């Protein structure tokens, strides 16, 4: 077989598509790891940051619709900026939203943040669904530009995009790992283990929690931006709680909350399981019930999460115990 034939074969295409989406979900999981894995903040609104990141990137990089298209598409913005500007804008807007949500909730009990993040995720979905002028309402946006699209023939484009996503994932993972291992990261874990003790040591608990919330949200925003450019089209339906929030939690717990390598592994392993359940439900669920097949898959992963929580709460890898990189372990 020639290289060309291998590159364009169906299985390889499927694999590349799989790796792109898994890498994007790994970014959400890394963000959630900063929130929950390191700091103990319960963010049940990953879908909200996912949506904000995706819509921000789309509105920043897309031009305003013209001609015939303008009659069917409404969008509040269309800045026609390069890809990286969109990614950074997505991170910044998510960071700002995190500050707004953090101020009323982070001084209170941990469950309040969980409720408030669900609230922000649901409200954002409602706004994008109902406000036609903002981003074309429930039909969503199409034709989100893809970076470096002219470099290779369209059939090979996914390889380029996989490269971009993996580069960004690696950059974010290394950066987060350094921050987590720094004295700053140590304070986060101290807060997670015992807030009162951290405060007694003179740490500004609220300040550190807010920083962690913002940092994690920015990473989720980057993930959302990469998702938008990969899909090329986004609509509010994408950001439903099961896909936007729940599976990110399963990935986090599966891989090992508090372990950077673990949560990336969790994202890939989970995505493989998820793809596997598709084949399983296709084979097992009778055709009469095929419309309900997705819910069998949901039930399966929900059971998986409960079993993980009960029997292996530390996940596949578990958290690495370290105090400082300066001291021999």
């Amino acid at each position: 077989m020639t290289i060309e034939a291998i590159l364009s074969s169906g299985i390889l295409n499927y694999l590349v598509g799989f790796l792109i989406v898994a890498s994007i979900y790994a970014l959400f999981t890394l963000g959630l790891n900063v929130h929950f894995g390191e700091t103990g903040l319960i963010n049940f609104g990953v879908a909200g940051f996912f949506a904000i990141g995706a819509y921000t990137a789309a509105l920043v990089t897309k031009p305003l619709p013209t001609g015939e298209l303008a009659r069917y598409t409404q969008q509040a913005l269309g800045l026609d900026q390069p890809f990286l500007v969109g990614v950074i804008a997505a991170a910044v807007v998510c960071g700002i939203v995190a500050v707004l949500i953090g101020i009323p909730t982070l001084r209170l009990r941990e469950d309040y943040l969980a409720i408030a993040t669900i609230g922000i995720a649901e409200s954002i979905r409602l706004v994008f669904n109902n406000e036609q002028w903002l981003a074309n309402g429930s039909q969503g946006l199409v034709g989100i530009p893809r970076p470096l699209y002219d470099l290779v023939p369209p059939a090979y484009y996914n390889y380029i995009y996989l490269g971009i996503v993996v580069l960004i994932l690696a950059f974010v993972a290394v950066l987060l790992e350094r921050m987590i291992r720094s004295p700053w990261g140590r304070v986060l874990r101290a807060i997670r283990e015992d807030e009162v003790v951290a405060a007694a040591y003179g740490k500004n608990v609220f300040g550190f929690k807010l920083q962690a919330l913002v940092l994690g949200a920015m990473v989720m925003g980057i993930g959302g931006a990469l998702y938008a450019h990969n899909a090329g089209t986004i609509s509010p339906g994408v950001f439903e709680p099961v896909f936007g929030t729940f599976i990110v939690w399963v990935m986090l717990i599966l891989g090992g909350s508090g372990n950077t390598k673990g949560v990336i592994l969790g994202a890939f392993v989970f995505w493989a399981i998820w793809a596997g359940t598709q084949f399983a439900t296709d084979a097992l669920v009778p055709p009469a019930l095929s419309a309900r097949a997705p819910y069998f898959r949901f039930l399966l992963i929900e059971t998986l999460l409960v079993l993980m929580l009960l029997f292996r709460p530390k996940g596949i890898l578990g958290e690495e115990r370290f105090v400082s990189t300066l001291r021999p372990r």
Partner: protein
Amino acid sequence: MIALVVDGVILGSILSLGAVSLTLVYGIVRFANFAHGDLMAVGAYVAFFLVNTAFVALGFPDATFGPLSFGLPMLLALPVAMLVTAGVAVSVDRLVFRPMRQRSYAPVMFVIGSLAVAFAIRALLFIIWGPEFHFFTQALRPALQLPYEVRVKPDQIFILLACLTMVAGLYLFLQRSKIGKALRATADNPDLARISGINTEHMLVWTWAIGAAMAATAGILLGIDAQLRPEMGWNLLLPLFAAAILGGIGNPYGALIGGMTIGIVQQVSTAFLLPTYKPAVAFVILILVLLIRPRGILGSEQRGF
């Protein structure tokens, strides 16, 4: 406007019932149970199965009570649905939360577990009954015309009375009965309760059963007033928590006021906003409460009941 307030009182009474049971469970199990809305949905769907499938198959008479849209089958279905929902909640506690308690997990793990339970219940509802809306009855009942262009359906008066009766019943139960007193003691201080010879594990079973039975009732009443859909539990989460926190979480009497407030504000907001924004309205109230008075109207350091 007055008509909207009246509608709000009806919705508010259902939310109150849901929020009172949510906050009761919260006070004893000590974590935010994100599956509470879905317990309401379970109650509604079990009643739907009995009234519209099982009883019809058994050839029950489906005569309705006077101007109400339902009859004897519904009154029989109500206690059965309460029992089934209580059974579901107690089993979930057995299978998920009790093992966590035995391993002394941190509270956050219970919260995550309850989210998984919530999604699992919803998936089951989708699998069994499908994604479409269901109605207890298709029959239209004339609404009563009251002054100021207020229209009230007889069902809605029943809903209001049923909710108030349930909450009053809970009040008497908590104040007068031995188990009620033990529950309050456990909510106040589990360690002291245990020292006084109260079996707190039994109290947890009672709490789940009572909380779930009340949630089931609220779900059925919502089904009578509106419709049944698998995601109803999820859509109720924000208003329920907003009501519970507004009233001071862990305080059932506060939750009653909180539920009424949220119901009225949600209905009145439809005069200015699309009705689909109702959950967002609850969210905005929630944020305002957290900013201004995070302990709620009736909240204090001491538990209120």
